[in-house]
């Protein structure tokens, strides 16, 4: 009965446009999207290079990249904390407990996901894709772009996966953001705090937002895939 009442309160907060709640959602989206915007070009280029350029130590680089996939986000937060803390090498920049610190952390967390998805998709693309492009007069760079375009849906899956990982991670955001209301409090850290305080309505409302976001992202992805299929 209490769960139902709490859920009703959560829905009320959502539909009445509760400023605190929607402010937290906005911070979450802003931080995660900027982090992805920064990480995506570098990660896609890295994944593509690892898949298509032979160089000494490539296998080791792939192993390291794939290991980062299972790296706990709280460890990323810890390392970043040590670097950004006042006594750390970048302490003078005053970035700790700012959205910038959260963005850096989330970009680091998203990077291996995006790079590994790109690596796998380019490796999975048949050699014939690149050869067809070359045979039809594409330069090496254009052939590479064509290959990347051909595996775009797999790369996009990596992008959505990366977004899912950063928008829901709590460890790093808590450590380097500090969970400051209205500044660095995002959805996962807010849920954690509200639950600890016994304020379940806020937590459930934010949880609903996260679930709805996940549904929207997956819906958009399937819609895009569908269009690609029909072209």
């Amino acid at each position, binding site marked *: 009965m209490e769960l139902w009442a709490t859920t009703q309160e959560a829905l009320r907060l959502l539909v009445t446009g509760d400023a605190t709640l929607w402010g937290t959602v906005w911070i979450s989206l802003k931080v995660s999207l900027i982090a992805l915007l920064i990480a995506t070009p570098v990660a896609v280029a890295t994944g593509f290079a690892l898949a298509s350029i032979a160089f000494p130590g490539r296998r080791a680089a792939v192993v390291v990249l794939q290991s980062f996939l299972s790296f706990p986000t709280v460890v990323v937060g810890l390392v970043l904390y040590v670097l950004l803390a006042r006594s750390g090498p970048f302490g003078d920049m005053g970035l700790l407990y700012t959205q910038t610190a959260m963005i850096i952390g989330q970009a680091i967390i998203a990077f291996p996901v995006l790079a590994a998805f790109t690596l796998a998709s380019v490796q999975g693309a048949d050699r014939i*894709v690149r050869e*067809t492009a070359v*045979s039809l007069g594409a330069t090496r760079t254009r052939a590479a772009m*064509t290959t990347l375009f051909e595996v775009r849906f797999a790369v996009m899956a990596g992008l959505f996966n990366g977004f899912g990982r950063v928008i829901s991670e709590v460890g790093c955001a808590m450590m380097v953001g500090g969970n400051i209301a209205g500044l660095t409090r995002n959805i996962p850290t807010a849920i954690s705090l509200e639950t600890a305080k016994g304020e379940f309505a806020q937590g459930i409302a934010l949880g609903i937002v996260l679930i709805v976001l996940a549904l929207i992202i997956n819906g958009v992805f399937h819609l895009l895939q569908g269009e*690609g299929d029909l072209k």
Partner: protein
Amino acid sequence: MTTKPVTPMLTITRLSKAFGDRVLFDINNLALNPGTLYVLTGDNGSGKTTLQRILAGLETANDLQLTFAGESIEGAFPARWRRDIIHVHQHPYLFHSSIADNIAYGLKMRGLAAAERQPLAAAAMQWAGLDARAGVPPKRLSGGERQKVALARAKVLEPKVLLVDEPTANLDRHARLQIVELLQKTVAAQRTVVVACHDREIIDLPGAVRLNLEGGQLTM
């Protein structure tokens, strides 16, 4: 009455390929003329595909001396030759876009504007008899139709040499005849066409010159 001697389009002075100690083939002095259909035969594993890939610059050879359109090279295949020597894969890859975009891909790579590409691609589609299938996504095309798109995609670039790998394998008779017709039209346009296949329909075509790759040697 004397006939004017034909200048070969592509001359293989020396071409050898080995994998470790195993010599796949070692070919000397072979001239391929324009307006001629060459049918490359040989057992599976004899190196037909590898030979075509080397001639298209998609694979390296151990020793390579070629003369193409009057220009001789030794060693590396010049990238610029890819404009005029095109390879069509046995299982052509069609890009995830429309048939027209697939056909126009090479034109786009050559820097032609969309307005210039469109009529050329449309003409190539008509040449291949693909007009009625224009709106069909490439992934839903049959094997024969995929081959036709691949041939149209190569034809639109007007290559001097067309290397085609097993274009009629696994196709029904109707589709095979359509592919054969496209190959004949290409030869009639004074192109040098080299088809690797076991298809009697192609081997027995009037005017076709058989090249048999056996024991590492190419015999005419």
